[in-house]
């Protein structure tokens, strides 16, 4: 996996949900400084149904350029070109980022009651495909993460299910 591409942008995404705690911490002064010190030059926020609006800034010298939007028909372009993705724990967002081969930090939504979502992120973090954080630890994660320790996620397909079904129904696999 490639190193921090210097002066690339960071994409913060909450998918179709609202996750103000993530947007607020990513927009905080401490987080901006951490991102700047890691060589990132700008941040794009996708805030979904959230009510917290991050500051827009044009990025004068030695400050971070920031912008935001709520929804887009497809996030693929934002993901493809990002130097770093900071995402909520939804499986759709996680796999879109992993398949694009972008470095990914998944942030747990502590406010959710049944937080089964983190199961997936923690499992993938154990295999070193991504980093896990919570709103409280995000700044620390950004400061200390070693992007070269990440392993490229080996994308899989539903082929095994298709074959199992075909076999069960008695189709010979031509």
């Amino acid at each position: 996996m490639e190193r921090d591409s210097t002066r690339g942008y960071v994409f913060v995404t909450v998918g179709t949900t609202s996750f103000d705690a993530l947007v607020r911490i990513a927009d905080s002064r401490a987080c901006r400084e951490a991102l700047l010190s890691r060589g990132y030059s700008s941040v794009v926020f996708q805030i979904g149904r959230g009510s917290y609006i991050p500051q827009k800034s044009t990025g004068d010298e030695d400050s971070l350029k920031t912008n935001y939007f709520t929804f887009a028909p497809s996030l693929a372009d934002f993901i493809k070109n990002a130097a770093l993705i900071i995402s909520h724990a939804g499986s759709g967002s996680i796999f879109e980022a992993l398949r694009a081969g972008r470095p990914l930090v998944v942030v747990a939504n502590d406010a959710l009651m049944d937080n089964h979502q983190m199961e997936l992120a923690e499992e993938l973090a154990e295999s070193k495909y991504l980093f896990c954080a919570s709103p409280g630890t995000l700044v620390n994660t950004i400061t200390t993460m070693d992007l070269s320790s990440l392993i490229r996620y080996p994308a899989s397909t539903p082929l095994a299910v298709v074959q199992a079904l075909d076999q069960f129904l008695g189709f010979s696999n031509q």
Partner: protein
Amino acid sequence: MKMEVQWLLWTIFSILVCRFGFALWSRGRALAPCLSKRSFSTLIVLGSGGHTAEMLDLVSMLNHERYSPRCYVAALTDNMSLSKAQRLEESFIQQAAANHKARYLQIYRSREVGQSYLTSMATTTIGMAHGLWIVFRVRPDIILCNGPGTCLPICIAGFLLKVLSFKWVVMVYIESIARVRKLSLTGLLLYKLCLMDQFFVQWPKLKNKFPRAQYVDRLM
């Protein structure tokens, strides 16, 4: 006269009990009538969001002629899933692989997030009745689902179709990739009730906990 009615009722009851037992016994076995068919009418339940994405990914890899005609079902409140399915079907037509027109149906959702207990009872009943109506009208050979709760009425209706008629229905559940250590509530119910013919999980930890499930590695 009274004796005859009683006798008739007992006969129907016994047949139903036998059918019920047979349906349970034959779960997970491919039956002879299946083997002679060349294509299977397939009912695909789209559960919204990540569930829909995973399911359509799977459908795109199925043989379009074997698994046809296809009928897609999504919750009434889900306005994205059916149009995504439609886009997938259009791509099949462009590949000249689709010979049947797909159908798209909407189902009442049993329960919305945050709904109260009392109104849940009423809406679950409506959802169940609607599920029965859809399954009995489509009479599929195969039901494909991967949660969440929307697929429960469909699966129960599919099982009833097995019990009541001589129509065979192969019922398939694929647990979502997001479930690593624990089954979802829907998955757990379907597993415990032994309703499904094929029950797939995507993580080895789940296979260890639920030995009747089939481990198929990650779909994504």
